[in-house]
């Protein structure tokens, strides 16, 4: 019985830690869609990135990471700076990227 409980606990912990993460960033300066392409391009170069959503309207850049992967703050700052913009805040949330899209009214890719 103890063995089953231990295995169940390990399985649950593993599934929680392997979940994809959603990173929501407030970015200043995004007024031109042509120039903002660099944000998506830079973030997609990170092997931990699964999907990216950019919204000029909401000054928002959201990244879904691959299962169990994460992107540290320094890498996020570099990606946004290299694209020519200012990263103001970083929030790591439990929301799915579809929920983010629904809130900002972006079309799903």
């Amino acid at each position, binding site marked *: 019985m103890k063995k089953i409980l231990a295995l169940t606990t390990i399985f649950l912990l593993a599934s929680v830690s392997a979940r994809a993460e959603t990173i929501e960033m407030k970015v200043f300066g*995004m007024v031109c869609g042509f120039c903002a392409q660099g944000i998506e391009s830079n973030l997609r170069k990170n092997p931990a990135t699964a999907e990216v959503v950019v919204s000029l309207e909401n000054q928002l850049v959201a990244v879904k990471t691959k299962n169990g992967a994460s992107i540290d703050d320094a890498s996020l700052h570099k990606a946004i700076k290299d*694209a020519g913009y200012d990263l103001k805040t970083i929030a790591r949330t439990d929301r799915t990227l579809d929920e983010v899209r629904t809130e900002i009214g972006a079309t799903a890719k």
Partner: protein
Amino acid sequence: MNRKLIFIAAIIAALFVHHAHGRPIVYAHSTTVMADFSAGAMHEAAISYAPRHNWSFGLGHMMLESHTRGYYEDFNYARLNYLAKRWNRAASQANVWLWGGVGNSNLTDYVPETVIPGEPIPGDDHGHVDPTLVPGYWRERQAVSWHTGGQIDYETRRLYSALKSEYYTSRLFSHRVDTVQLGFAPYEHDVDSLATWFVVSGVRHTGGSHDETEWALLLRFFKKRAWLEAGSTTEGKLRANLMVSF
């Protein structure tokens, strides 16, 4: 595959249409091809690579011509572009750009065979003769040329404004081009939608090829990595500008 196609299309466009009023740097590690066509005045094509978000280097070709088609200035140049300052705000951005370059220039002009002192030359426009009206010969000269320029711009998702000044010089000629652009977007675009802008552009040429101010109304479209601007001057001449980044 798509990147390859975009690259080939951009190179072809750059070869056939020749400068741009867009941005010399789009983002770090990006390559930008810019082409500009201004009928009867200027053609330019340039390709640049940005190792960082605040500087890029590139190669370009520009040709200035007189209205009479009896005077041409050609430049082949290498150029450094530098983003000197950027202000990023929640809903706006402002920039200061500087650039400079060196290259070779080629001056081709039509020289009338006989000129009677004091008599007006048929087809003469600011000292440039119309080759179809006066007997004469073509003369070609070459020299090292230098150029420098700068731009300040401010934009929101609905308004765009830019002031640009460029100066080209060699032992054969000097030419200055000052540009002002004011744009208005009828709606706010986002990253995945088509952006549409109405742009009023004024270009003042001073020096070699001609000395005048030219106003134009342009329609600007961009989506994803492609940018197209086209319109007409008050004299009905075509102005077009293409930019692709990848």
